[in-house]
């Protein structure tokens, strides 16, 4: 019975008639009035307490994805490898005949090229292979946008360097096989059975993206942007694609520009290609 729905009353969701009826009940029934006041106070305190728990939890734990020690170790190891490689290269060069050609650079996911200058863009794009799969069908037919999306649909799964926990192995297996509808159903079941977490949201956002659900994907991915700062580069790219799926290039372009202007961005070349295509 909506007219005595305390929650709707406290949320200001009753219509005029229901509100008048509710207020009449409040005036005539002191026990009911007390009940409403108790619920109002309790929910107010509950809101503050949940917020306090969030603040306390955030400020007592380091941000997700930021692991200074591992980062420093990684940098140290990378530096040592580079140094070793440099000396090895010079030793080889000293020994090799002058006519031996140098090996061409290979484009692998683990290799990060130095940040290219603006003038080097065509060369950078030349090294970028075409996406393995086409973009999904757009919700609204857009004959100009679909070919652009097809050229930008770099959605390799799992994203390079990313490992998911074993609790989602069944979902990730389906996503790797590109069985997106089945994966989405499984994700829904998992979300119902457990408290939703950021990994499930990330996977669901990606899955919706592959199903061409731009708006829905953005809703999942947007909520993650600040919760998991370490995931930002991949989320940025997905968000750019999400906006493109909705046909909104004005929101997509600044994201791709930001990627293209971030020298150490893992999707730098893809970002540059997107900017060039959209401009």
């Amino acid at each position: 019975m909506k007219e005595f729905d305390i929650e709707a009353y406290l949320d200001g969701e009753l219509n005029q008639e229901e509100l008048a009826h509710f207020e009449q009940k409040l005036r005539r029934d002191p026990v009911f009035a007390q009940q409403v006041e108790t619920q109002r106070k309790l929910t107010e305190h509950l809101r503050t307490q949940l917020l306090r728990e969030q603040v306390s939890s955030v400020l007592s734990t380091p941000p997700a994805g930021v692991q200074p020690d591992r980062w420093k170790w990684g940098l140290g190891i990378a530096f040592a490898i580079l140094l070793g490689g440099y000396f090895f290269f010079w030793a080889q060069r000293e020994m090799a005949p002058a006519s031996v050609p140098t090996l061409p650079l290979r484009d692998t996911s683990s290799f990060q090229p130095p940040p290219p200058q603006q003038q080097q863009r065509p060369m950078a794009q030349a090294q970028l292979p075409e996406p393995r799969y086409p973009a999904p069908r757009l919700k609204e037919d857009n004959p100009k946008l679909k070919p652009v999306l097809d050229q930008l649909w770099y959605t390799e799964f799992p994203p390079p360097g990313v490992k998911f926990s074993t609790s989602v192995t069944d979902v990730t297996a389906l996503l790797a096989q590109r069985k997106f509808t089945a994966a989405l159903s499984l994700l829904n079941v998992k979300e119902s059975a457990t408290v939703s977490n950021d990994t499930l949201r990330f996977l669901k956002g990606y899955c919706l993206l592959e199903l061409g659900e731009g708006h829905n994907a953005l809703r999942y991915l947007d909520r993650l942007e600040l919760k998991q700062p370490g995931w930002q580069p991949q989320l940025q790219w997905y968000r750019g694609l999400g906006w493109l799926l909705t046909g909104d290039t004005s929101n997509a372009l600044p994201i791709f520009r930001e990627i293209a202007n971030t020298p150490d961005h893992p999707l730098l070349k893809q970002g540059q290609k997107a900017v060039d295509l959209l401009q």
Partner: protein
Amino acid sequence: MTYSVTRFLKAEKNLLADKKGLYEALGRAEPGAIRALANKIAYDVRQATLRAGLAAEDAEELLNDAVVITINNIRNQAFQFAEFSPAAYANGVARKLIANRVRTKKPVQQDLEEVSLHSELNPEAYLNNKELEGIIGKLLHNLGENCQQLLRLKYFENMRDKEIIEQALTPYNSTTSLKSKRNQCLNKLIEIAMEAKVLEGY
């Protein structure tokens, strides 16, 4: 998906530069925004705490409280963006909390700069409620995962029932069943809070 510390700091810096964005992100209680605000005011709060003759350990609690009050006031519109930047507002709140802490520890009221800021803030009421709310939080944890999630989605995430159903965030597939279950959970919480005599005086 680990990238780097500098990337996080960059994100935090960008957020602080965009005051309106920070204000909105704080309204959603986003972790990055909470961290950015706390980092921004931490030094000032610590200095003000020490200057007021309080212990360094008090600074952390005062900082947390200042962030909570700032976000709460953004959410209930007591703090509107046009007035101050979130960091300036939170600093003002912290100063008022420090003044209150000093007052309760020493018989003579200390003069602290700009404590007249945020005259609507009543630190004593806030601290009394803080204790009560801590108990409500403990009672909530006794309700089980499902109830906690339902109440959290509504009273912390501020999500509408339609959104919760659309995003399949709970086992319920209609707003009616969702609302009904949440009401049961809330009534259970009220019941155990009554038993624990937490709600006496309402």
